[in-house]
């Protein structure tokens, strides 16, 4: 079956030294194509760090976790740093349990991420 996404969209922008993916809606199997395309767009900014902004995400399922793992693997392959911000308390817990937070820094918000990336 062909997944159709009607509950996920993503916008890509650059802010200072960051390429930011603003994620909206649910991250599940339906988000695959849009997320992949957006990440490619973010790569084109050629920043050393790409940030996934989860501030407007309501639901991430295990397939969504797998998509994030795929992006993280892709970032590591191209020597980029993948970071996140805006995760709810529940999904922060899931990022801890799955150990994703061992491989990608979880910032509380975009400003905190910008400060640290600027220092780095």
């Amino acid at each position: 079956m062909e997944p159709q996404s009607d509950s996920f969209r993503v916008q890509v922008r650059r802010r200072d030294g960051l390429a930011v993916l603003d994620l909206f809606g649910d991250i599940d199997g339906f988000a695959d194509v849009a997320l992949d395309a957006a990440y490619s767009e973010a790569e084109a900014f050629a920043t050393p760090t790409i940030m996934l902004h989860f501030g407007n995400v309501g639901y991430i399922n295990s397939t969504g976790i797998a998509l994030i793992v795929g992006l993280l693997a892709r970032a590591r392959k191209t020597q980029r740093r993948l970071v996140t911000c805006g995760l709810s308390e529940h999904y922060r817990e899931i990022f801890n349990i799955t150990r994703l937070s061992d491989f990608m820094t979880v910032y509380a918000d975009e400003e905190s991420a910008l400060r640290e990336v600027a220092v780095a």
Partner: protein
Amino acid sequence: MPDIAGWEVTAYYQPARAVGGDFYDFISFPDGRIAFVIGDVTDKGVPAALVMATTRTLLRSAAERLVSPGAVLEETNNQLVENIPPKMFVTCLYALLDPASGRLVFANAGHDVPYRRTRAGVVELRARGMPLGLLPNMHYEQHEVTLETGDCVLLYSDGLVEAHSPTREMFGFPRLQAMMGEPVDGNLVPFLLDRLRAFTGPQWEQEDDVTIVLLGSRPGGNGAGEPEERRKVLARFELPSRPGNERLAMQQVAEVVAPLGLAQGKLDRLKTAVAEATMNGMEHGNRYDEDIPVLIEVARETDDLTISITDRGLKQPIPEAATPDLTAKLAGQQSPRGWGLFLIQNMVDEMHVTADEVHHTVNLVVHLTEGAQRGTTE
């Protein structure tokens, strides 16, 4: 319509043709008990009407001599099977209410399962049995519940749940069950009929008879009584195995458990576990075949809340939940997928898997401690 102190009974019948195959009946007994009967004869028109009249007479005759609903259906079936025309049969639900205690004993001959609305949610009243008139010497399971003040029980025919919208979408059981749970001022029957009309549209060509019988215990009435069983089913519903439907499972379970006042963190974890287990059932058990639903039951037993999610995975075993190796996944040595069972196990206090020849059931258990009170944090 029977007039029972402390109870409200409402019936609605709309045949699809001039002579329909649905019927309902009320049988009063000298001790104050009353039987509620609803049935549906295959086919329509005069032949169906004759079978309907015969069945109604046989049921009344059996009820005069027999008390238990299961025995009444057995006797009626044995009488009917000898006289019914070929290729016809009758589905029938027979429920016996003791208005003083609220005790409702019921048996079912293949009829659509009634819904009971309680303060905690909407549940199905299930009892197995073959339709009447097919085979002799059938046994009919009998179950009982005690209706509490404010509860109601909805009996209905398939013409309601099989009604179609202008775009050929079916009304369906999940929609009916969800509507039953909505807050309604006054009687539920006009509310359901309004919703049905809105769903089918004004040009609806009614395909089948629609029959509804509602039995409600009035607040302050006699139909009170604490359930005797320690384990209380709060809701039972099914969802088609369609990608994305795990969100419906998650939302419906959240609504059912809302009165328990789980702390936000515990509720979020439960929702994730329910979504993942439902997704596994739909994908691996039912292979996303929309005709095979996942069944979800929410039950409370003393301090435990258990969500049971059943698929039809046949003998395919559910693997043990293992900790995924993220390093290997990032190195491309393993698939990035495979998080479902691991997440489920980490989101609830206990996870048990049971299976028979046909089904898998994943039981998710959450311990309801004092931390489960509304407004507390963890």
